[in-house]
């Protein structure tokens, strides 16, 4: 009834909501990585989009040069890119520990520009095609829309990644160490825990999540050097809305923003690139720490 009033039959709306959820799953994994990094390292990781792109390119490179298939890439690419992330943390970001956030932001932003620039030089801006894995081609007719198997898989894989992350950080001993490390690193060190190593691992894990999202995206969009910069700003808005550093907030807001964006694409497509920032502005006015953020 309501949907008819708004001018669209329920089927169209269901389809758009489902697509919104699928895109939201991407936002969730990406913003989760950002939240982990910010929560534990206090670094606003502007290189996240470039690292997401590196994940997709790794999948493409592994397939093209080594013949590794999609499923292998889903594991290998995040490990490779995560390792690269750990090098960045160990040799660059660590030097900025204790100085203003702004320096970390500038460094990672610069890194993103360098990485993207190098890839444009090497591969061009139009990017490379990456095929959908054989087992996930085709789809199913849900009555209100045709759902490609691959998109369904994206939601499942993203939720698994979010679940695993939540489990690691909230339910395991290493998670407890990490959380303790953000509260009082000196005290934790005094207990004999190697805090710098923990920090490096945490950054690597956040970066690995970005790369994982990149591999998930590879069959959907062109594997292009610009794929990350188009997405990263939206993901930052998601993190800000959810509350910087909140794991739960990142996941829930990611999915929620996907839905809101999906609805906007139906009712006012021109505004679909802006709607998330509109929400962000409102949230910042009403709850400056974000929906799930804890005020200090």
């Amino acid at each position, binding site marked *: 009834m309501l949907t008819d009033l708004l001018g669209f039959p329920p089927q169209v709306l269901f389809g*758009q909501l489902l697509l919104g959820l699928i895109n939201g799953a991407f936002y969730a994994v990406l913003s989760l990585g950002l939240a982990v990094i910010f929560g534990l390292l206090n670094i606003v990781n502007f290189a996240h989009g470039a690292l997401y792109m590196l994940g997709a390119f790794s999948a493409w490179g592994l397939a093209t040069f080594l013949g590794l298939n999609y499923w292998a890439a889903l594991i290998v690419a995040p490990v490779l890119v995560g390792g690269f992330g750990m090098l960045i943390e160990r040799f660059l970001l660590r030097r900025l520990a204790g100085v203003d956030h702004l320096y970390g932001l500038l460094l990672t932003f610069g890194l993103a520009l360098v990485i993207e620039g190098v890839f444009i030089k090497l591969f061009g801006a139009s990017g490379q095609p990456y095929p959908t894995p054989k087992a996930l081609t085709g789809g199913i007719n849900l009555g209100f829309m*045709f759902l490609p198997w691959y998109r369904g898989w994206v939601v499942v894989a993203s939720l698994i990644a979010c679940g695993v992350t939540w489990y690691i950080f909230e339910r395991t001993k290493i998670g407890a160490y990490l959380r303790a490390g953000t509260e009082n690193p000196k005290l934790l060190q005094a207990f004999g825990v190697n805090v710098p190593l923990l920090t490096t691992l945490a950054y690597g894990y956040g970066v690995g999540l970005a790369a994982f999202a990149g591999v998930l995206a590879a069959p959907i969009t*062109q594997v292009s050097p610009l794929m990350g910069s188009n997405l990263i700003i939206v993901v930052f808005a998601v993190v800000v809305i959810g509350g910087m550093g909140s794991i739960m907030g990142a996941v829930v807001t990611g999915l929620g923003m996907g839905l809101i964006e999906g609805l906007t694409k139906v009712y006012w497509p021109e505004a679909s690139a802006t709607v998330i920032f509109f929400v962000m502005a409102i949230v910042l006015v009403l709850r400056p720490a974000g929906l799930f953020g804890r005020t200090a």
Partner: protein
Amino acid sequence: MKTLKTLALGASTLAMAASASAEISDGVVKIGLLTDMSGTYSDLAGPGAVEAAKMAIEDIGGTVAGVPVELVTADHQNKADIAANKAREWGENEQVDAFAELVTTSTAMAVFEIAKQQNKVVLVSGAASSPLTNDACIPSGIHYTYSTTALANGTGKAVVAEGGDTWYFLTADYAFGQALEADVTKVVEAAGGKVLGSIRHPFPASDFSSFVLQAQGSGAKVIGLANAGADTTNAIKAANEFGLVAAGQSLAALLMFITDVHALGLETAQGIQLTTGFYWDMDDETRAWSEKFMERTGSMPSMVQAGVYSSVSFYLKAIEATGSDDTDTVMEWMRDRPIDDFFAKGGVIRSDGRMVHDMYLARVKSPAESKGPWDYYDIVRTIPGEEAYGTLEESTCPTK
């Protein structure tokens, strides 16, 4: 003031003594090339367009009418304000005589404004919108390579003729997308077809699934993609993924470059019909030039890049022939004679700035049909210039 004049006189006498370049201002011909060097259009224009302009300058010997030719380039990042500021700076402080390339309509429009004030030549290759030679035309602007009108009269007409009489558009929400949608709508309606609706999507957009789903729901036989570059390739990928074509609707990629086909791969791109102003594998001349280009850049030229070479060459020939870089003199020379090179055979620059030349309707080959790298198109039909671009009478350019 008097001293200044005397100085200027002295300087020009010196210049004359050095060469026969009496009418070349400041002893150098300077071309300012503005393009997208790193963004979504950088493969179809970008560094390749710069290389094409360099080739044009080298092929004429690096000098015209006894003075050196210089090329300056800048990345306009597809932003009109950057393009306008750079053009103004070049025109005022660096004695640039002509602006070239200009992919993205908004940047071309912005540079038209500056060029009108400064009375400089503009050789547009990358931007597509037909208003550049209609309402927005300027006396010294040339729209060289293609236009949304030609794309509509090429692909649009061909698709309607094959029975695609109901349309729905996915349109990039800026000047170019809107111009292309308007031009194709005219062609579709003139042929008795109907446009059922359109979606204006943000530029650039990364996910097209939602727009594709809405297009699917429209029930139109043809989904027209009034966008370009990565937007087009991503829309095609989403349409394939969501079974749009399998369910009986067809896709019309209204603007597609060879670099887009290359990026998509033939497996996905096969069967797509498109309109192009140039294809490398047409005859010995196009192959010879394109292979030279390939050696320097690593990829075959898009029509935009080939158009940059042709337009810059023709401009330099005009200076060589008239011995002057005065805008009005050069424009008059260029309008008075046909362009005859590998790119445009018998091309004519009309008084509204339109360069009228034959266009080609092409179909993308299947992987089995393609005999080697970059063997992508079957040329289905040559569209005579007048049919593609319409007549001068139809142009709404006030200064035609």
